[in-house]
């Protein structure tokens, strides 16, 4: 009988002592933690992309937990509606939809549509190349094509093909890291619902652009005439679309002689035209 009692009693006594001490310790030495913040942080994807405007996910969670109602719950673009809803429910607020954003490259100059101006033998990044006479291409406004954006994208949504960055709109969450990285500043972050874009940023005069790139906007203003909503205008020698006014009709794209206005298919429909 003793063979059973000793181990059981010892184990119980030691366990009790340990439990008691821990319970006492927990009671007298506790330090409060902000659990809301931890919970919110768990809902965020942890990409630390900064699309919310805070310095990383932790920061955003802290701001939400501490300032509550003053910080919007729908700022996390990568986490999309799911994260927004989860955060809202943690904070006991109504869920808000995230305005889905997507990146768009304002250039269509593929390797065969434009020519290099020099034999660039430096570091193969766009930022470095830009510091050398504005990049190896003869057009100084377009995509340099060394893929700084591709390396920066945490989602693998942007890729350089044939010398031009292309965004995969299915994967892109619109976090804006590529736009911040691009030394040419030709990547825009725009609401996903907008589907008509001018894929050129050249500020060269039409004649110059025409000489340098077969896929460049020459500022002919045919699109301006085609647009029924006064949404497209030529500024800085290339067409620009006013996002507020654009109704996605695509008439400008039909009118464009250089085919630099692209129309993306509606979301959730298989893409018909690939970017660029």
């Amino acid at each position, binding site marked *: 009988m003793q063979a059973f009692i000793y181990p059981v009693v010892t184990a119980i006594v030691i366990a009790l002592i340990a439990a008691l001490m821990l319970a006492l310790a927990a009671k007298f030495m506790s330090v409060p933690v902000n659990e809301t913040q931890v919970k919110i942080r768990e809902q965020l994807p942890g990409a630390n992309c900064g699309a919310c405007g805070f310095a990383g996910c932790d920061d955003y969670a802290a701001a939400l937990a501490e300032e509550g109602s003053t910080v919007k719950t729908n700022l996390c673009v990568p986490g999309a509606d799911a994260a927004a809803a989860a955060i809202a429910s943690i904070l006991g607020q109504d869920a808000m939809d995230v305005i889905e954003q997507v990146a768009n490259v304002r250039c269509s100059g593929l390797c065969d549509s434009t020519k*290099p*101006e*020099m*034999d*660039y*033998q*430096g*570091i193969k990044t766009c930022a470095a190349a830009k510091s*050398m*006479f504005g990049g*190896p291409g003869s057009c100084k406004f377009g995509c340099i094509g060394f893929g700084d954006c591709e390396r920066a994208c945490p989602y693998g949504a942007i890729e350089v093909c044939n010398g031009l960055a292309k965004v995969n709109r299915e994967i892109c969450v619109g976090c804006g890291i590529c736009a911040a990285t691009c030394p040419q500043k030709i990547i825009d972050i725009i609401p996903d619902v907008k589907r008509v874009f001018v894929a050129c940023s050249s500020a060269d005069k039409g004649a110059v652009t025409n000489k340098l790139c077969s896929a460049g906007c020459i500022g002919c203003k045919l699109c301006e005439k085609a647009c029924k909503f006064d949404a497209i205008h030529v500024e800085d020698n290339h067409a620009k679309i006013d996002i507020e006014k654009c109704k996605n009709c695509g008439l400008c794209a039909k009118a464009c002689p250089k085919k630099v206005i692209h129309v993306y298919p509606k979301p959730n429909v298989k893409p018909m035209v690939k970017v660029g």
Partner: protein
Amino acid sequence: MAERHTNLIVASAPHVVSPANTASIMRDVLIALIPALAVSVYVFGIRALMLSVCCVVFCVFFEWLSRRIMKRSNTIGDLSAAVTGLILAFNLPVRLPFWMAAVGCLIAIVVVKQLFGGLGQNFANPAIVGRITLFIGFASPMANWTITSRMSQAILSAAEVDATTGATPLALSAAGLPVPTNMEMFLGLINGSMGEISAAALLLGGIYLIVRKVISPAIPVSFLATVAVLSLVFGLDPIFQLCAGGVMLGAIFMATDYVTSPITTTGRIIFGIGCGVFTMLIRVYASYPEGVSFAILLMNILTPHIDRLTRHKTFKPAEGGASK
């Protein structure tokens, strides 16, 4: 208007570069190893040459193969694999079966170097790890020393007394037997790993490397000096300790491997001293007779820390000096 020149090369300054490149440095190391190779062929016979060629060929082959499998650029042209192969060969006893040497090459090139991304990214010297692995893995073949008629009388007579003592001078010394004279040690008329026997030939190579500015004297000098000083401290003959075993080969060719040694001169001196201290500690106290390779490996592992602590101080005014 003149004839136009367009589409020129645009690259960043400087537009001129020093003549030394990786391949030329490695070539210099290979040249510096020739005297030691010659001595080992003289002492051990033609098999020394065969084993060396075998190691070089295997190393280059493994380098080529692994780069190919990883679908990366071919790097055998930088000659670093050939250098590894030759140095590894120098660390082997001349009778070692060729397949064992090949295992060493496999470990050195594939495991230690290419698995970590290739030249410049390994943290331990490939030849050293190759040697240690063989040394521990194939303990008896790696201690199977050969006696030839060109060796010192002390070794020949020791072999006659006891057939099992095909031993190195260090083993003789440990066993309390008479050891070769210092001159014989210096010239290399002894047995041991095939490339490390002749201190004279290795020194010649070392001087060549220093003159060609391939290596800085910091590591060899501090390493050898530490060994000498510690020998005196332990009451041993410093010349014997310097010429015996792998100290010369290690100090001149293995500890000075750029990739695995510190980058600053101060760091290199600390590295050399560390190598010397551990070498002597292992020689005197541990169960292995020779500690050079363990010492260098340990210092290789410590190199990141040494580098961290011996950083150059940037040229700037002392704290609180005039600033904007």
